């Protein structure tokens, strides 16, 4: 059964230095609050897995938490580059970052394989692409029935996956709605899964066939309203487009980025305090 914990306790207990960690959420329900808490608690040498690193990994990489990144598309959606990711790859700041690069289809299949308890995924991919030349983990297998050459990639099996969802009930069963991305697969592929939620309710009232993760498949459920900001939580709040744009000049400059992390993450106790601080700033700037 999932324990209902504070986010700080869940990160403290479940995320260790050197772990392989997946924070998933495909532009929707991105678990930003968990990333803040990982930075606050000073985790190091993490291998980060995520299809779309987004601002959430730009933060973790810039803050020096990551040793390696496994990903398939690294941009600031609708804005441009992830400057902290680029600075780490191009200039080795704040330290060298190993990258292991895939395509979306590959990583999505690798999560499915991980959730399925398989060592690798098989898919029709990469013929003619240079990606296998720079990622030796992309290999081929021959179909034993037809002889077709297919791509084989290792499954993703994180030590810890963190996802954000709309709601949990008091037993820790979780309901996810809207764009699902690979969250269910990422949670089931992990040794330990943490889910942050917008609210905890008496009854999920989940429609038949809804995406529900049962409590017994999860490690911890944490109540973190607004925890997916600046992405959106369908039915709760919209994407904060302005934050995605504001992030660009912050992340462009090392000193400005470090000052931002100091003020907004180390200078706040939790995500609620961070959100209050950010709201006050955004109001003052208007």
């Amino acid at each position, binding site marked *: 059964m999932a324990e209902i914990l504070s986010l700080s306790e869940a990160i403290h207990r479940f995320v260790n230095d050197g772990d392989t960690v997946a924070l998933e959420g*495909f*532009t*929707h329900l991105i678990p930003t609050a968990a990333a803040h808490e990982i930075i606050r608690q000073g985790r190091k040498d993490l291998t980060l897995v995520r*299809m779309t690193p987004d601002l959430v990994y730009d933060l973790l990489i810039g803050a020096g938490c990551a040793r390696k990144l496994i*990903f*398939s*598309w*690294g*941009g600031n*959606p*609708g*804005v*441009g*580059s992830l400057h902290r*990711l*680029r600075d780490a*790859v*191009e200039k080795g700041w704040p330290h060298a970052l190993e990258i292991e*690069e*895939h*395509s*979306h*289809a*590959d990583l*999505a*299949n690798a*999560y*499915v394989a991980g959730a399925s308890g398989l060592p690798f995924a098989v*898919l*029709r*991919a*990469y*013929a*003619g*692409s*240079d*990606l296998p030349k*720079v990622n030796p983990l992309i290999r081929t297998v021959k179909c034993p029935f037809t002889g*077709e*050459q297919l791509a084989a990639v290792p499954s993703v099996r994180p030590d810890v996956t963190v996802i954000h969802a709309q709601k949990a009930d008091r037993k820790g069963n979780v309901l996810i709605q*809207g*764009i*699902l*991305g*690979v969250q*269910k*697969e990422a949670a089931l592929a992990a040794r330990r899964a943490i889910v942050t939620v917008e609210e905890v309710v008496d009854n999920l009232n989940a429609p038949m066939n809804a995406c529900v993760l049962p409590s017994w498949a999860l490690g911890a459920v944490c109540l973190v309203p607004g925890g997916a900001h600046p992405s*959106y939580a*369908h039915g709760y709040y*919209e*994407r904060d*487009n*302005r934050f*995605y*744009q504001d992030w660009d000049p912050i992340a462009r400059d090392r000193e400005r980025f470090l000052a931002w992390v100091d003020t907004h993450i180390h200078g706040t106790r939790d995500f609620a305090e961070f959100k209050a601080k950010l709201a006050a700033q955004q109001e003052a700037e208007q």
Partner: protein
Amino acid sequence: MTAYTTSEMMTVAAARRLGNSDVTFVGIGLPSKAANLARLTHAPDVTLIYESGPIGAKPSVLPLSIGDGELAETADTVVPTGEIFRYWLQGGRIDVGFLGAAQVDKYGNINTTVIGDYRQPKVRLPGAGGAPEIAGSAKKVLIILKQSHRTFVDRLAFVTSVGHGEGGDHRQRLGLPGAGPVAIITDLCIMEPEAGTNEFVVTALHPGIAREQVIENTGWPIRFADQVDVTKEPSEAELVALRDLEARTAAAHGQQGGEE
């Protein structure tokens, strides 16, 4: 005739390539804009699939990200991302893959990964996303991007998504199921693969564009088909639909639709 920009001509020309019954896998940015313009004009029943999971999305404004809530709300169904790539793309159900690019070469191969050396890049681009498998498995592929020396290059630093590979029957030899790119639509012209070589040649110039402009903005010695048409100008209805879409998008987001 209302005045229009070369970007508008590009979007309209790309939209016209989609048919009403096409099941279309849509990239964010220019492909999404053109695909939705098609849906709002001549192809109201076109099926738009986005890699985040929506199938049959009918957004009233352009998404900023590939997983905007509007795509889910207006879709016929929303499935997990793994399913999008496994059942719907790899399963052979996509008629048209609609892609943007940072760079293309004369065989319609696409680079969205890196400029310069992979380990010591001059510019690190976002990476593959869904494009390699869309380029491989969609029955045909349309590519839309603005034309310049920097985007139409003689030799790609990195082939992220394969077009016609080294030309000729290279795709068949690679065992790729789809036919590959059938058109590159730019702000200057339309290019299509030449029969046999599969090298992209100019088959239509947009109105008012001279051959020299295309030559100057292409990084390889671009060739022209024996018959080069002039693209039909955007109609009043196409321009109104496009501008309304952009205005609704700006009003909703405070900015234009996103680039992947």
